[in-house]
């Protein structure tokens, strides 16, 4: 094949000239002038036969955004999204206001109690539910084949899925801001007093970081299986386990270095400073590393379809 190429090299130039004319003609009647210019320039460099010119691809960022947008639209189109958001708001609200005396018992203008329950609700319900579809369903229905045979990088698919799912979780978290707004802002609402808003926003930031880690793990599990249910349970168990091992009683029971080790990896102990209004840089790095790890594994798992 190679020797042939060399032999025909001189012929190639003639052919290339012919192709240029042909391409220009082709492009002339059904495409805009810019493209015809592009394609007529292409065959001149016969060695890199159309390498650049035919790469009709948007930038990576806009590709990821296109995919994420599609994901968000799909989520907004499905009834489950609304059910999940409404149900979590109700459950978290009931817990916040009424469980064991609730918010009123504290007798302080503080939202700290909100951050007791929400991380668990995210781990248990919201994150697994919003990530279970992402890749598992595409694999089950087979749409992944069409998606991946478009000029999309695997990493862009994973990032798009991640951002799409994260956007839904973030929407859920953002809706939680309704509580303090209703309770503490001035008329026409309750106006229960002056709230120190900074710790609240730090807590929200913590929730976002926690969700990023959780969503990455969810996308990872979703990339392993074709079943949404399996993906849900795997994600839920992973997150709940990571969260629950950090509970004070377990850490105290183990004492010494095992306890330290556990509180080092637990979502709960890592989130705890945020609930108090502290931005802990170690925790930020921890959540971001967990996110990266989840996404890299998901990427590898998606790539592995090629070899299996």
């Amino acid at each position, binding site marked *: 094949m190679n020797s*042939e190429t060399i032999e025909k090299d001189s012929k190639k130039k003639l052919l290339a000239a012919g192709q240029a004319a042909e391409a220009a003609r082709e492009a002339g009647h059904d495409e805009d002038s810019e493209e015809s210019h592009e394609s007529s320039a292409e065959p001149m460099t016969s060695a890199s*036969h159309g390498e650049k010119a035919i790469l*009709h691809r*948007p930038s990576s960022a806009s590709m990821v955004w*296109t995919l994420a947008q599609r994901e968000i*639209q799909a989520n907004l189109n499905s009834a489950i999204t609304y059910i999940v958001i409404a149900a979590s708001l109700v459950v978290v609200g009931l817990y916040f206001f009424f469980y064991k005396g609730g918010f009123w018992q504290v007798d302080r203008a503080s939202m700290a109690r909100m951050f007791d329950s929400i991380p668990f609700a995210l781990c248990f319900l919201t994150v697994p539910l919003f990530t279970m579809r992402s890749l598992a369903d595409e694999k089950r229905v087979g749409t992944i084949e069409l998606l991946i*045979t478009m*000029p*999309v990088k695997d990493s862009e698919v994973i990032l798009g899925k991640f951002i799409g799912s994260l956007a839904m979780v973030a929407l859920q978290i953002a809706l939680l801001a309704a509580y303090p707004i209703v309770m503490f802002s001035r008329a026409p609402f309750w106006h229960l007093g002056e709230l120190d808003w900074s710790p609240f926003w730090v807590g929200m930031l913590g929730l976002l970081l926690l969700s990023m880690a959780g969503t990455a793990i969810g996308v990872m599990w979703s990339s392993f299986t074709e079943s949404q249910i399996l993906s849900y349970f795997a994600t839920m168990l992973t997150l709940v386990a990571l969260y629950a091992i950090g509970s004070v009683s377990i850490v105290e029971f183990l004492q010494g270095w095992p306890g330290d080790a556990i509180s080092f990896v637990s979502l709960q102990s890592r989130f705890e400073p945020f609930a108090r209004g502290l931005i802990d840089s170690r925790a930020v790095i921890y959540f971001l590393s967990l996110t990266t790890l989840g996404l890299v594994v998901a990427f590898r798992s998606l790539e592995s379809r090629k070899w299996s």
Partner: protein
Amino acid sequence: MSTDVMIYANGLSKRYGSFRALDDVSFEVRRGEVVGFLGPNGAGKSTTMRILTCFIAPTSGTAKVRGQDVFDDTLAVRSSLGYLPQRAPLYLEMTVYEYLRFAAKVRNIDDSLFKQRARNVVEVCGLAQSLSKEIRQLSHGYRQRVGLAQALIHDPPILILDEPTSDLDPNEKAEFLNYLKQIGKDRTVLLSTHNLKEVESACARAIIVSRGRVVADGALDEIRAKSGRVRYIVSVQESIGASAYRGTGAPPKQSDVERALSGLKGVKKVAELPTDDRAHQYAIDGDDGDDIRADIFRMVSDKGWVLLELHRDTQTLEDVFRQLTIGDERRNRQLGPVAETSNASDEDDSDDEDEDDDSDDEETAPIESKRGKR
């Protein structure tokens, strides 16, 4: 390799564990060709297409699309392809318009160009009435149209279509084939199907795969001639019916006729076809070269039998297809361990068929050798 080769596959193999889905598949498709990719279910058509579209990687071998390697230049390959996977898997919750818009965005087509292309594609695929419908509401035939529209939206030079007509009704099929002829003029199309009529009406060339191997590759006429055999249908009257028996002596027994026919020169195989009790009907396989109709007539008339029917069938594509791929189906109906010659991968294709049917041996000789003879 000339620049005209749009799809180039060389020694593609794919294993799934111990199962060999593809075994040394090589072929080329040139610019402007419409090639039918034929084979029974599970022969490796979809696997080949998935390799060409960069969805999976081959275990060994190389494939190039437009001179670009499917493994090293995957984005370039994918952007010059339009691909319709089997059963057109689409996002069900999107409307047709949204889906096309999404496909166009991924292909980096801007709004004005999209509108223009969409109009074109919608007209071609007959989607005008369903643009605003959700894909989940569409029948399979319409989903397939959307899949096709999606594959055409960026006006690709190469189309790879995996069973594009499987869910279409006969009218839609006819329309699709017409359309395929149109787009085949300036595009390269590789289309897989079971339907041989479609191949005959739309493709000039076919590649037949069976059990992961290419068993025939060439122009349709060459493939038809490939078996090098001709079939004769002969009916001889067996008993006296309503009309008087015009033969001399008693009507022949079935075994007599069969023996006599087998004795003729140039006859390779005689098989009895089911008939009623008034006649014996046989299918005779003969050589391509000489016509034995005269001999058959002479023999029957010498014996004093009555010849009711005699005609010569040239091979249809369907016959060749069946002969080339029959082993697959037999294998499916056979329990227990199957004699597998998978370790003989370096040998000629014909070895593989031998065990299935002794008389099949010439059929699987590569078409190239036939080309040389003629």
